[in-house]
């Protein structure tokens, strides 16, 4: 039953005061003076991070019906090409970040691959169009919300001198969250590589298979590529960390502890249960592998993690969790998104509210990385420094190709401990900002309407 605006606002005010992580930083506004959306927008901290970003960038609402929607694990309407929007307004740039095997994007005649740049959609100039009708067509074509939609694209493949025209029909594509698992022989020994794109349920089985394969190959180092991994099941992040480090450094220790506001230090205020730290899972959690099955391990003292601006949340938890138990983490790529936070979504009157209620802290109690993690030699707006190298994304090579810039830098750092030279710009800060902008934004969801590409 719909309540009055005042009662809804009063509910939100009380809810925020009780559960918001930074409740004491919220200015107390009169709930009778605002519409509910406007009032909710005020119910957050106005503080900024060290880099100047808003401290709370994760305060939003969602239609409850859409929020509760379910999908078969990893299934989403699209073509199987993950488009990276490097510039969303004219002159726009959209490239393929990676593809899903067996999808419309990778099947003939489309044969799309990483690095292909989209130039037109259904005849609309993607780079330069500015009118609303054209932009609507671009979004509709690039990000179909259902299967069976046919659209025509002009694409410039990586390394090609002339564009080609393809037509793809959208489908409910099943993603492969772990790809390109392999080994690379280097002067430092045999290095394992795996591309891990999504912490979805089916990733549990794929990761177990990947780590078992790398264990059988007796790798003595690992490159974990999570540059496009925005998070998901935290249990899977814990499993990944365990499979990297093994039981020695992780047994009986905390992968991540949930920290609520100072009003709730012992019990989870939503579930009422005692706050119990999440351990490093040594066995499968029953997501797609039978619960209790022992996980393979590499028992490595260090790991190199490839990152970017789309590396978020549960992916960042892997970095933080491993650092908490003394595993050497080397970061190659760009600054991560900076989301050590979580929430219990709250439904009310058809709207689901999201307000930060907890942060995740590691064994050492550290969980403050709102500006993300940054390779130590990064410039510009940076987060918590991690040893490693700032390297921009390289769309001219396949992910997992030892010549791909980030992987190449990672392999070089393993051998000689040095980084590629960061290209000089007008200033170090500007160079960093340019590098950050080049990261682009990854889009997976169908619920976008016209807001991805803008005028």
């Amino acid at each position: 039953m719909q309540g009055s605006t005042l009662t809804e606002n009063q509910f939100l005010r009380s809810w925020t005061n009780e559960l918001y992580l930074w409740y004491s930083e919220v200015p107390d506004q009169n709930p009778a003076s605002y519409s509910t959306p406007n009032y909710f927008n005020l119910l957050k901290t106005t503080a900024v991070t060290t880099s100047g970003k808003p401290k709370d960038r994760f305060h939003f609402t969602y239609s409850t019906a859409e929020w509760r929607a379910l999908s078969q694990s990893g299934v989403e309407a699209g073509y199987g090409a993950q488009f990276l929007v490097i510039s969303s307004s004219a002159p726009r740039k959209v490239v393929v970040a990676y593809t899903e095997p067996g999808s419309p994007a990778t099947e003939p005649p489309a044969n799309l691959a990483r690095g292909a740049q989209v130039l037109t959609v259904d005849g609309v100039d993607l780079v330069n169009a500015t009118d609303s009708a054209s932009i609507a067509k671009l979004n509709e074509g690039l990000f179909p919300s259902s299967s069976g939609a046919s659209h025509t694209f002009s694409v410039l493949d990586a390394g090609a001198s002339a564009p080609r025209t393809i037509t793809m029909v959208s489908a409910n594509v099943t993603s492969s969250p772990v790809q390109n698992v392999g080994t690379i022989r280097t002067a430092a020994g045999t290095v394992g590589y795996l591309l891990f794109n999504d912490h979805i349920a089916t990733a549990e089985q794929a990761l177990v298979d990947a780590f078992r394969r790398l264990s059988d190959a007796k790798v003595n180092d690992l490159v974990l590529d999570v540059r496009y991994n925005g998070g998901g099941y935290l249990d899977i992040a814990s499993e990944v960390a365990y499979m990297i480090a093994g039981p020695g450094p992780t047994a009986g220790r905390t992968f991540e502890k949930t920290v609520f506001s100072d009003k709730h230090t012992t019990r989870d205020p939503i579930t009422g249960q005692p706050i119990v730290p999440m351990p490093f899972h040594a066995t499968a959690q029953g997501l797609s592998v039978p619960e209790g099955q022992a996980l393979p391990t590499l028992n490595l003292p260090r790991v190199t993690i490839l990152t970017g601006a789309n590396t978020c949340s549960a992916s960042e938890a892997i970095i933080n969790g491993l650092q908490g138990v003394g595993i050497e983490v080397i970061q190659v790529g760009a600054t991560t998104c900076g989301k050590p936070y979580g929430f219990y979504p709250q439904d009310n009157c058809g709207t689901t509210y999201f307000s930060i209620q907890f942060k995740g802290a590691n064994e050492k109690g550290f969980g403050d990385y709102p500006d993300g993690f940054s390779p130590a030699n990064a410039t510009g707006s940076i987060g918590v420094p991690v040893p490693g190298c700032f390297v921009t994304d390289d769309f001219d090579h396949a992910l997992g190709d030892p010549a791909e810039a980030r992987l190449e830098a990672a392999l070089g750092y393993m051998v000689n401990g040095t980084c590629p030279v960061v290209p000089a710009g007008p200033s170090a800060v500007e160079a960093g900002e340019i590098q950050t902008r080049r990261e682009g934004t990854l889009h997976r969801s169908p619920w976008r309407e016209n807001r991805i590409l803008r005028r």
Partner: protein
Amino acid sequence: MNHVWRQTVAASTAAALFLAGCAQRKSPPEVPAILTNPTGQSRAELTRVLSEAMNGVSVTLADDALTGTDTLILGPAARRDAKEMNLGGRETRRPEHFRLVKRGSQCVLVHVETGRSWILASATCSPR
């Protein structure tokens, strides 16, 4: 919650064995199954049944759901906020698991976490 999947399977098996031992007329054995020759009608039925099982929420499936494996996992659909930030970053809920079994000539969908089951009248299936 972590133990639900395994425990429910074990409980179902035990119950099935018990019933098999006591019933005057034996129930047809259940065997893991996959869908064969799915049609638009059978896919729609599968989607509808899953939605009903999940209290009416929208459910998106692959066209080949349950055709290569007897297990189907449902999780949160991918979502972003108005600024296109990924909302699924720190998921602590559990996915839902369904298994397809063939019981006699019937194709039956079983919700592993609860043991509830539904006959898929439009589907054809064969032992996996």
